[in-house]
């Protein structure tokens, strides 16, 4: 990807930026506009930060572990620089965690056309209909073992996008909590909402909105109650500022559910 640097002022600047890219293994966290680069197959998603282009993910389907961000919004990127070959012209982050920032940003509108230099040699799902199963679905012949019957106090963390509440990510987790609560059976549930915070690579402390921890806790409590959870509930919320150290800060955007038999 580094290619040959032509001797010109512009090229020197560009190469300097590339040379300054973080080394493999380094954690990186930034907020920037996502970029769509089309290919002959599915589009890939990129983001630029401090002169470098990072590969985030490709379009596949709802089974993907890393789901694409959204044009019209900035994206919070948290990842580890990988030594893998660049994809779609971007430095690969592995693992990577993405969160769409909620406010609209009309500047985030870059769609790059398909370019023969950039191809995807893995393609879990074409851009149209699937071949009959989700891109990352487990082998249907391998039936997963049923989860063990829970015993004792159970602590479950639910993670959220930045400043957001319950979304498409959560029905499976909520159903799982309901199942565990019924199997225990839970007599008491403690629900703690956390307002998350992030230490970005440039040193900035990025905090979620005041009140988001409370909103999340109440929302989860209301959903579990509405779905039939019959247990004494204790609801509280805290600020997660102290957890922001640039390492997996996405885990601070959460609700912790503690089920006690």
């Amino acid at each position, binding site marked *: 990807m580094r290619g040959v640097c032509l001797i010109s002022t512009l090229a020197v600047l560009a190469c300097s930026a590339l040379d300054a890219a973080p080394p493999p293994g380094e954690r990186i966290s930034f907020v920037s506009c996502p970029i*769509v680069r*089309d290919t002959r197959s*599915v*589009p890939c*998603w990129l983001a630029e930060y401090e002169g470098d282009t990072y590969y985030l993910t490709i*379009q596949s*389907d*709802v089974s*993907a572990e890393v*789901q*694409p*961000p*959204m*044009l*019209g*919004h900035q994206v919070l990127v948290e990842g580890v620089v990988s030594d893998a070959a660049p994809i779609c012209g971007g430095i690969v982050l592995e693992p990577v965690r993405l969160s*769409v920032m*909620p*406010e*609209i940003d009309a500047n985030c509108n870059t*769609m790059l056309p398909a370019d023969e230099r950039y191809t995807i040699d893995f393609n879990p799902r074409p*851009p*149209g*209909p*699937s*071949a*009959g*199963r989700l891109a990352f679905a487990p082998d249907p012949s391998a039936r997963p073992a049923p989860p063990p019957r829970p015993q004792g106090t159970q602590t479950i963390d639910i993670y959220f996008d930045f*400043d*957001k509440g*319950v*979304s*498409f*990510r*959560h*029905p499976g987790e*909520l*159903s799982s909590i*309901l199942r565990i609560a019924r199997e225990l059976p839970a007599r008491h549930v403690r629900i703690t909402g956390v307002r998350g915070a992030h230490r970005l690579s440039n040193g900035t402390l990025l905090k979620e909105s005041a*009140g988001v921890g409370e909103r999340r806790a109440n929302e989860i409590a209301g*959903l579990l109650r*509405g*779905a*039939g959870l019959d247990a004494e509930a204790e609801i509280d919320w805290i600020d997660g500022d102290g957890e922001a150290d640039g390492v997996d800060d996405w885990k601070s955007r959460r609700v912790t559910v503690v089920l006690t038999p």
Partner: protein
Amino acid sequence: MRSIKLICVPLLACAGAGLLSAQSPSRTAETLKEWWWAPGDDRVLPAYVEYRNEFGRLGIVNTDGPIETDGHPFFEPLGSNGRACVSCHQPADGMSLSVDSIQQIWHASGGKDPIFAAVDGMNCPNLPPGDPESHSLLLRRGLFRIPLPWPPVDADGNEITPEFTLEVVRDPTGCNTDPVYGVNGERREVSVYRRPRPAANLRYVTSSGFGVSPFIGKTGALAAVDPDTGRPVNMNMMSDAREPTLKTQAQSAAHGHLEVTQPLTVEQLDKIRDFEMQLYAAQAFSYGAGPLDEPDGPSGLGPTAMATGNDGVLGNNTTRFVIPMEEKWANLPKDGDDAERARNEFRESVQRGHDVFFFRTFWIKDAMHINTVGLGNPIKRTCATCHGMHMTGMDTANGWMDLGTTNHPWALEPPESPWAETLPELPLFKITCSADLPPHPFLGREIYTQDPGRALISGKCEDVGAIVIQQFRGLAARAPYFSNGSAATLRELVDFYDRRFNIRFTEQERVDLVNFLSVL
């Protein structure tokens, strides 16, 4: 340059203009008794019946055999205004109601048919009855008034605190600013105007075979439950999914549309539900393609295929398909007489239209509840991504999305001017979402909409303008299209999507898509 084959069947409105006042072949006032089911008619609905429409004939399969309608609660006028369920769910119209039928009944009855009842067959109940202008939305666009409580209430009747305020910006019907019926009136209602949905193929529509859980798959919110069983339902009925089951829908419709004063009995509700679940409707014969129910034809076409197909199946894949055609109408013989060649050409057009629907990619962008469910914004996909349910083309579960049919900027009417001959017909609301919550991801915190859709039920900002996706079957019999009747023809429907998503269909692709949709 590739030549464009414009394959138009008789009365297929390729130009679109004038369709709303056109009459279908054999659908005249003189033959009204043959195709119009009036409440209380003592007739038998046979096990199979066909009705003509402008594209051919629609077939209705009644799987439990002939029904004697005398005394049947679907066919009897149960309330004070003389309507029955069948008034707005006519067999000839695919168990919906076309604007063509509405206009003919208006003329035949002198505006006295019960479908024109003041409660919702007029733009507002306070208008003078009998004046066509009082019924203009029904006569021109096939729209009934749907008054919904404001603020919204939940299934137990408790008020929901909405995430937004609602302001009436434009009120051409006068109803939303009326001292009685208005948003701030005595009744505290929001009046929106919607098409009746087909009461057929409901085994598919209500199936819980895919994606149904206590929590809505696209949002994580609580799913509605069947009050009889306590189990979650798929929330795919009605434009806004406000009723969870066919029985609760019937109860609500009896009260709201039929003006029944006492709740329907359990026996009546069971009979209505059972009848609706045994009906299958699809186009059976096409003037262009010929018979659609052939045993060796495409397996997804025709009413028999609907009656025997599998429900609860995701069809957006190359194993099940949404409308299976097995490429049986690809590369057909070019010899034969003129009629055979014309039929084969039309069938090939239908096959191409299917392929456009299923494989032609475009960028789906800024569509709420599709670009927000982990696929990214935009996604490079096809029509079948959203219209993915096997056999119906609905969404598989919890199928409300904002495709722009009611929200600005996509539902924007032409600018008004001193020279304009028409004025906007539908109300316009300004929605202001709470500054304390995340904005609508594509429309922000100030949204202009003709119909807030699901948001009038959920109270959620993200649901403004989100409408449950309709089934594709029997389209030939029930124009106009979209919940607000904004597409008068199948061509206008295709053109809307082309504008909305900047698809840039070729003329050939548009013709092929229309032909495909016309045989469903």
